[in-house]
């Protein structure tokens, strides 16, 4: 009995080291190196602020990820609700005291890092719901109370994030949350019904959108509507990607980026620069790298013992998939522009922090795959 309540598992350090998922680890390292190189290119081929900052964060958060993975998955199970509610508090704090940048209030200045709690919430909501569905009885999964509680857990932060306003992150939080509901076993009928309801209510939802968000949708539907204004980003992004061709223009040779035609090339549009310089072949390889990471996480999910770990792995894998899909669709002109970073690649501490925490917990689940949680 004593053993189960101990936070530390009975594995020793070397056993844990042996249990680390090296495929995932190598993929993450490869991705990190790629992202540092691309960041170097956004700085015009010089070792400037963005590159330095990005590389430092990568190093710090990578070490942090390793530390997280050495803690028993049971510990993270314990901490899930705490993490979730702390993030909720941070979101509330942000809505009152946050830093306002170009109309949205999303950030807390922690001096060494500007924290964006909504990014953390993307992980927190998965952790929280994984724990929730770990605990809920199979019989009660489709009960009203159970679904209502789960939806409350999802939409409380979503409302806070929407109010910032930040549509992109809200969508990502909702999709991360809903996927746990789906995996947890909520009836497919419910998903279907709510999806239809959502479609019907879409026009009303749109009427509540901020003017700039509406503009983004209009621009998405026809980017040439205002080529120098709202449509500029998407047009330039498509030009950059399209002009990359099969082999790309070469490292540090992306004219669209170093001549400043690309907007937000460090953050949301990082893939555009990557794709311009490394072409179709590079983009496929990057997508392949992400796919391996997702498959690896899913496969970890399939053999872990505890429901919590399984749900988290599946949920997190799906979340990464959604981040990538939303980001790429956006820069490829398939979706309207909603702010959503490309995991690890995009400049931004909070997003990287959240992703690394996710990887850490997945790794912890792998190391402690035999750990059951009651």
């Amino acid at each position, binding site marked *: 009995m004593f053993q189960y309540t101990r936070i530390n598992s009975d594995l020793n350090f070397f056993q844990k080291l042996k249990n680390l998922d090296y495929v995932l680890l190598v993929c993450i390292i490869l991705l990190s190196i790629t992202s540092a190189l691309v960041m170097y290119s956004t700085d015009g081929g010089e070792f400037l602020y963005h590159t330095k900052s990005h590389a430092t964060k990568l190093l710090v958060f990578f070490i942090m990820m390793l530390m997280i993975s050495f803690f028993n998955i049971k510990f993270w199970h314990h901490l899930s609700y705490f993490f979730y509610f702390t993030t909720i508090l941070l979101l509330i704090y942000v809505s009152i005291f946050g830093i306002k940048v170009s109309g949205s209030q999303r950030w807390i200045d922690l001096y060494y890092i500007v924290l964006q709690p909504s990014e953390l919430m993307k992980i927190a909501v998965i952790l929280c719901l994984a724990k929730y569905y770990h605990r809920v*009885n*199979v019989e009660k999964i489709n009960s009203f109370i159970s679904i209502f509680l789960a939806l409350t857990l999802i939409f409380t932060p979503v409302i806070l994030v929407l109010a910032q306003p930040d549509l992109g992150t809200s969508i990502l939080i909702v999709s991360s949350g809903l*996927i746990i509901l*789906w*995996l*947890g*076993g909520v009836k497919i009928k419910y998903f279907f019904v709510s999806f239809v309801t959502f479609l019907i209510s879409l026009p009303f939802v749109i009427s509540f959108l901020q003017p700039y968000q509406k503009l983004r949708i209009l621009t998405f539907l026809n980017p040439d509507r205002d080529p120098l204004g709202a449509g500029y980003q998407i047009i*330039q992004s*498509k*030009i*950059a*990607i*399209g*002009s*990359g*061709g*099969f082999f790309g223009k070469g490292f540090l040779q992306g*004219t*669209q980026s170093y*001549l*400043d*035609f690309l907007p937000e090339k460090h953050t949301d549009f990082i893939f555009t620069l990557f*794709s311009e310089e490394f*072409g*179709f072949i590079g*983009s*496929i390889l990057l*997508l392949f790298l992400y*796919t391996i990471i*997702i498959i690896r996480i*899913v496969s970890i*999910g*399939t053999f872990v013992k505890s*429901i919590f770990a*399984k*749900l988290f792995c*599946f949920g997190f894998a*799906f979340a990464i*998939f959604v981040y990538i*899909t939303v980001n*790429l*669709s956006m820069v*490829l002109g*398939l979706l309207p522009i909603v702010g959503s970073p490309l995991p690890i690649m995009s400049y931004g501490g909070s997003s990287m922090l959240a992703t690394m925490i996710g990887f850490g917990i997945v790794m912890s689940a792998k190391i402690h795959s035999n750990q059951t949680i*009651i």
Partner: protein
Amino acid sequence: MIKKNLGIRKSDIINRRMFIIGVAKLIVFGGLIARLFSLQINENKKYLTLSDKNRIREWKLPPTRGNIVDYFGNTVAGNLKVYQLHVIPEQVENFAYLIARLQTILQLSNKRVEKIKKKKSQLKPWESLIVSENLSWSEFLKINNYLYELVGVKPVMTISRDYPFDDIYTHVLGYVSQPNEEDILANEVIQEKFVPGIKIGKLGLEKTLENDLIGVNDIQRYEVNAYGKRINQLEYQKGKQGSKIRITLDTEVQKLSAKLLEGKAGSISVMDIYTGEVIAMYSSPSYNPNSFLFGISQDEWQLIRNNPLKPLINKTLSGLYSPGSTIKPIVALSALENNIIDPKFKVHCKGKMELHGQTFHCWKEKGHGFMSLRNAMKQSCDTYFYEIARLLGVDRLKKTADKFGLGKKVLGEYFENEKSGQFPDTKWKINNLGRGWVLGETLITGIGQGYTQTTPIQLCLMTAQIANGGYKITPKVLTYDNQLISEQVKRAMLSNNNDKPFEKLFKEQKNIKIVQDSMFGSTNELRGTSYKSRIDDPKYQFAGKTGTAQVKRISKRERELDLKTSQIPYEERDHALYVAFGPYKNPRYSLSIIVEHGGSGSSAAAPIATKLFKLIIDRHELRKQVFDFKEFNI
């Protein structure tokens, strides 16, 4: 145990649903790859073009104008290297200091500095600001000496139009200057080639031949960033200099014409009587076209504009004058052609002639006595011409005048400002003045007064066509490939068995000969009006007709006073005219001279012809040798 079963059930559901999602993910990633494929492989070309369009900007530079050379290949409108001073504002640390420094070095006026400052505010910081368009060599050296402390200053060498003969050719070539909006709108070629700093023809051949002269712009291709700033130069595409144009004029004759008319208002035109090539065409006074290149100063402009001798008017082409007695060869020819008179026909000149109660005076108050045609031409007897004009009638006279090119533009296709003048007849008066023709008007038309208005070039053409035996010629100022030289045209004209026969302006050529002979008498025989200006050497001997055109009606009192020219106010003095051709034995050239308010043709205009013929005929041998037209017309 129960818990465990439930756990297994739960993870079954989770795994099953994970599988569904996995399939969905695969489809979505497949879609993304398809999109990447379509953008990067299928539409690669389109986006590559767009990306180049983004980053590559073209800068056109002013094209180099084609040179204009005279008949002998001397450049009369060329291009000169000029030194300019550019400042690139973004490279300058302290603009106010720099400008103050430049002001002391170049001694710029405060006004100029203000202008530069204003211009700077209209430019982007990386666009070069032209501080001086035309630095002198010493200024250029000074700037280069101080260059180390003048950061952001760029001495530039560029090309500018240059007229080496200053005012000699202004009325032929015109000048170039910066185009205004109208110029740009009027000419598509200018529109296409326009760049700030381009100079275009404003007048004369520079304007008419703009499209040939303008050339092709040099193009610089730069890579620019999203804000339009030049990052680096990718390519420099050399343009093409405009076509070289060779004119038919002879600079030496042109120079002499300018010298002969110095200080006077007037015009000299010289023409090859066989080819119609204009040898000289000078309108006095002229002005320096080089003054317009970098914008003329207000003072200088006012000086030109307010000059009472009107330098801005091209008197050769747009000056309208009564031909005076220079019309008499045409009147005589017309009377002969219409069989009104024969050379023996005589009129008694008593100094005046009465008609319907009106008195028509001959210039010689005492009268010339009995006059034949030859004598009347020689002494320019007005009474004789009153009489034959009366017999001829103005309508028949006009037909002859028309044939010889009066009342029509001569070089209209080259010069926009040419005027057509007029030769009146009865119809013209009814249509234009609404009143019927009066016989008295026929009489004064017969001595080149009244409604008749001619340009000097028309008189020159008229004389040329009398001199060549009465054949129509087409005057021109440009040379062409494979054109016939004077000698060839002459032979063709005389043999007259050509495929394309020359148009005859006469019914009987002997009438032309009679007129030529009487003009010979006028110059080379005693009592001829231009006898004093004759040259006896047959090499230079010429035949001509003087003319004195009244600018106002002479009142009775003035006639009685018989004032000397110098005693009359300048504006009221007669215009002096002279038309001539030579050498008489073997005619080559015709000329027309007019000196505004010069007094009588015999005293003011004819002496000029003497000097001109000497030079023209001396240069004839040289001109004959230069006929390789291809070599010049590139």
